[in-house]
């Protein structure tokens, strides 16, 4: 078994190599083995300097119980580490050491360094006097350098993970801060338009109506931008897991049914009897289907029809899930096809309609579809209608 830190889902191949403690442990074991030492200790330099100067944290110990060693030591209190980090590698051959190292007479301490980057120290101990010599240092030096490379790589990846978490937090805060004023302005304006602040002249009504439409667009834009940003961070759309596609499509249909009815469009859902499971997040899958359906309704004239079908398909022995959204709408001109999934792109015939659109909905869909290992296809005839097909690999229980 390989320790994987606090990650519990989706173990990636080689993920255990990305665990700092695991690397330090392997480094200490290898060092002890190579030079036939009795004990080895790996300490890592703390990134932040405290009031008492820099300190080292215990990362691994073999041959001595980890519990006998302090979790952190100030660099000033550890002459062995201090000398090694200063570039003066200590080679002690007849030392009298403090517990828990009092059984050892020989000690070496090497910096874990690669070029300019110093990440910590590697100490090895042997019981007899004269247990080590300069050859021992020469043997251990490449190992220490290799360890330093691995450790600094993992530290860099950790920093990246923290940045990603910060980005997700920022999006969460921005979601509220950006949406909130728009929602308040719209709520007030709707009250005014309904006459709750007194009778409006026809001109006022017309102008307030225009403001309201602008705010609708702004709201849509804020929501889409935040969805787009959320979809591009791994935390943004929740934890990836097995998702029941039937339920997700059902929710999207239910959400958009009122809008279809309002516009006089027949929304038909051909549900599939089997439960079909794909890999993704509920929020992400919901967003894909809501965006596709809302586009279909938006770009289909009154009296038209939007049909959603869900089925299981098999191609070359590979089981897949197919979701199709077919409309009898305005269609997509051939020249618009190559740009369809570009951010902020809107087809000329879509722009000409009096419908709110940001040109971000399909970018969001494409990002999410790719994230979940699915693919999207589109067929369209201008004036006849459009079919979007999303195909997910079946998630196999293991």
């Amino acid at each position, binding site marked *: 078994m390989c320790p994987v830190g606090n990650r519990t889902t989706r173990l990636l191949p080689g993920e255990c190599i990305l665990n700092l403690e695991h690397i330090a442990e392997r480094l200490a074991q290898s060092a002890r083995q190579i030079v036939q030492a009795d004990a080895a200790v790996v300490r890592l330099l703390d990134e932040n300097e405290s009031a008492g100067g820099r300190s080292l944290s215990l990362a691994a110990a073999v041959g001595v119980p980890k519990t006998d060693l302090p979790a952190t030591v100030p660099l000033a209190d550890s002459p062995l580490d201090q000398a090694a980090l200063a570039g003066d590698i200590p080679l002690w051959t007849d030392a009298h050491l403090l517990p828990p190292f009092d059984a050892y007479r020989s000690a070496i301490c090497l910096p874990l360094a690669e070029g300019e980057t110093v990440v910590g120290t590697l100490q090895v101990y042997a019981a007899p006097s004269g247990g080590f010599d300069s050859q021992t240092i020469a043997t251990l030096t490449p190992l220490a350098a290799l360890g330093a490379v691995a450790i600094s790589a993992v530290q860099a990846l950790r920093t990246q993970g923290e940045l990603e978490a910060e980005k997700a937090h920022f999006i969460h805060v921005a979601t*509220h801060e950006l949406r909130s004023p728009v929602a308040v302005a719209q709520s007030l304006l709707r009250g005014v338009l309904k006459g709750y602040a007194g009778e409006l002249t026809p001109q006022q009504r017309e102008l307030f109506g225009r403001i309201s439409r602008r705010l609708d667009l702004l709201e849509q834009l804020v929501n889409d931008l935040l969805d787009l940003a959320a979809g591009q961070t791994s935390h943004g759309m929740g934890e990836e897991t097995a998702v029941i596609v039937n339920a997700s499509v059902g929710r999207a249909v239910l959400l958009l049914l009122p809008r279809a009815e309002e516009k006089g469009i027949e929304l038909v859902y051909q549900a599939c009897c089997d439960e079909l499971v794909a890999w993704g997040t509920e929020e992400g899958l919901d967003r894909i289907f809501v965006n596709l359906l809302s586009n279909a309704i938006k770009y289909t004239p009154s009296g038209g029809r939007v049909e959603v079908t869900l089925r299981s398909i098999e191609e070359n022995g590979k089981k897949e899930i197919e979701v199709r959204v077919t409309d009898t709408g305005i269609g997509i001109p051939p020249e618009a096809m190559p740009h369809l999934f570009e951010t902020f792109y809107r087809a000329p015939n879509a722009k000409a309609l009096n419908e709110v659109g940001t040109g971000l909905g399909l970018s969001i869909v494409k990002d999410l579809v790719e994230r979940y290992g699915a693919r999207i296809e589109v067929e369209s005839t201008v004036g006849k209608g459009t079919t979007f097909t999303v195909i997910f690999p079946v998630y196999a229980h293991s």
Partner: protein
Amino acid sequence: MPKILVIEDDLDMVTAIRMPLEANGYEVFHAATGEEGLQKVKEVEPDLIILDVMMETTTAGFQVSLQLRNPDPASEYAAYRDIPILMLTAIHTTTSLRFGPDEAYLPVDDFVDKPIDPDVLLEKVQALIR
């Protein structure tokens, strides 16, 4: 005249809610924080509570609804447990679509989306105050 307590920290949003409600014969009271809201529930004894989710904290509204609906008979809000709660939120249209009235998860009676449509608000208020 039915009494409605609006627990919402944004005064402009309170105005937007107040306009259609007062025009339709409801008496509107206001509290700007969850804590003040709980206090006002006791003072006003409203017929309906309209509750925002994010106020001083991102879940202040949830806390208020959980306190009011605490099933413990010794709860200080036991007398107010049956007051219907209409929750204001933008959450269930924008993120999780499965977010709905669910006794086990969130004890509220209905949701109304921000931005508020006066007709939708009135319809939901009328349905909850019987």
